[in-house]
């Protein structure tokens, strides 16, 4: 465990200083600050748009940060030959991969918390009172990003960062449209069985990123989620299980990969 932690902290230290990630972080924070500073709407509109935009900015910046980080975690180590000195030490390949993933995840968490803090302070100032429920949206965003990070890391063990970038984004977009793929997978006399099975497969195999979109109940207080805690816990469990499966596949591939 100490090996994994050592690798994770080294990865975090390196990742947190990556300029491109800092750019996304600062742009996201700047956008939120500008938005909060200049938005002039009626009270209801203001809050709706503020919450929607704030969470959207966090998600978008977080997606870019997770993907760019995830696609480079392993290739960077190979390109710069750091992996040779690490794997020639008593470090097993799965420890290396898990350490890199955790380092990336801590980086994503740090970025999400920073953006979330700005978001909640902005809403607090606008609303004149804090709304802690916003953290639920931020939490869901983080678990969504964890899943995305694992997906990018999985692809990074066998495809180039360039291909990985588009592949991960493609899957993220398809996975975010889970309601669409679900309806396409629903049997219908007018649909070919092939199409139904194809979308059933896509809906089952591709991570369901749309489930993490908590913006609707957040922005539309009229939308009722019967049990928010259960909704959040279920999504967290889904993200953790899916991430574990992706990491297991990544470990199996990486174990056979030459570096």
């Amino acid at each position: 465990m100490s090996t994994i932690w050592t690798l994770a902290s080294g990865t975090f230290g390196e990742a947190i200083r990556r300029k491109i990630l800092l750019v996304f972080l600062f742009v996201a924070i700047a956008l939120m600050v500008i938005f909060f500073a200049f938005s002039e709407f009626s009270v209801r509109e203001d809050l709706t748009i503020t919450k929607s935009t704030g969470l959207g900015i966090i998600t978008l910046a977080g997606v870019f940060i997770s993907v760019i980080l995830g696609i480079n975690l392993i290739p960077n180590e190979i390109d710069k030959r750091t992996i040779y000195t690490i794997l020639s030490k008593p470090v097993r390949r799965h420890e290396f991969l898990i350490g890199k993933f955790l380092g990336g995840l801590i980086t994503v968490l740090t970025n999400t918390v920073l953006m979330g803090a700005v978001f909640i302070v902005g809403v607090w100032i606008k609303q004149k009172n804090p709304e802690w429920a916003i953290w639920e949206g931020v939490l869901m965003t983080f678990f969504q990003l964890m899943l995305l990070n694992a997906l990018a890391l999985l692809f990074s063990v066998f495809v180039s960062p360039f291909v990985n970038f588009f592949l991960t984004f493609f899957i993220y977009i398809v996975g975010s449209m889970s309601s669409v793929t679900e309806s396409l997978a629903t049997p219908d006399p007018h649909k070919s069985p092939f199409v139904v099975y194809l979308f059933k497969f896509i809906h089952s195999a591709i991570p369901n990123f749309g489930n993490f979109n908590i913006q609707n109940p957040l922005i539309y207080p009229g939308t009722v989620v019967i049990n928010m805690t259960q909704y959040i816990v279920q999504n967290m469990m889904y993200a953790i299980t899916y991430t574990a499966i992706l990491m297991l596949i990544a470990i199996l591939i990486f174990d056979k990969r030459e570096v």
Partner: protein
Amino acid sequence: MADNEAPSSSSSNADKGKTASLADAISSDNSPQGETGNAIEIRNLVKRYRNLITREWITAVNDISLDVVQGEIFGFLGPNGAGKTTTIKALLGLIFPDAGTIKVLGRGPGDNDAKRKISYLPESPYFYEHMSGREVVAFYASLFGLSGKARNKRVDYLLDLVGLAGAGDKPLRAYSKGMLQRVGIAQSLVNDPKVLFFDEPTSGLDPIAHRDIRDLIIHLKTEGRTLFLSSHQLSDVELVCDRVSILYRGKIRQMGRVDDLVAGGKVEIVAQDCKPDADRIAQLKALGGSTEQIGDDILITSSGEVASKNAIIDWVRGVGGNIISITPTRRTLEDIFIETIREGEREAGEATHFVEGTEAGSRS
């Protein structure tokens, strides 16, 4: 560099405490040595790669076998692309052989117990730039389970050993290439290794850093460590290595003790007052000697064999001459290297790309 003054990591009393601390942190030595006493054993190693564009298979390492005994400094030589780094990576378990067997300290490549006893310094190593030299060495020490005071002591000792005691807290981005190489060596010694794999440890260094690192390698040799050294710096290799192998196009073309390889040089005999006629000159040629007139003297070059030497001395006396000097000339490892590679090129039917007098490292 303070390596000459620094206590040996296994010999001095001062360092015994450090070694003991390290031993406490690193699991006990349960990695057996090779049954034959070899630190490294390679048998019929083959490694092929597929060209992604042409789909052709390229044989990077072609059926090589060698043993490195414990405590030996083994030079692994060859032009660029000969298969040196591929072999080292296979030894470390970073890539997998297509055929053949490999053992390091009696274990298969990549075995974690063996990895506790070995270390690797890649060519132009890169480390996390946000860290200082001290943090980098501490990072690698942590991978061996070292922590707290034991780790700090080990890090201090190693930074001192490689001459970075005063610069250990600077970030790596402020380091020169020579300093980075010293950090690389420090990280490679963090576990007090029995077997070290050094890939071009002096590549691109200024003369001072080059000399320091060469001295450090000599220092490691005196400590009885096994060193598998890949280098283009043939003069260094000749100085520090016990044995070498010369690889060309994935095959070992030459292997043996350095002393044996460079032996068998020629002898230059300078004589005066020689008045040979044509028959006598022909006789000298038959003895394997060649002559060159230098002023009033004659320079005769012959093989270094005793019989040949004596026959030429007799010949000089036979023509009424006097011996002025007899000087054995020694071949260098570079001579052997160039001859071996040229022979390999001839065998491969290639046009020669060698240019006389260029640094071996620049050829490929």
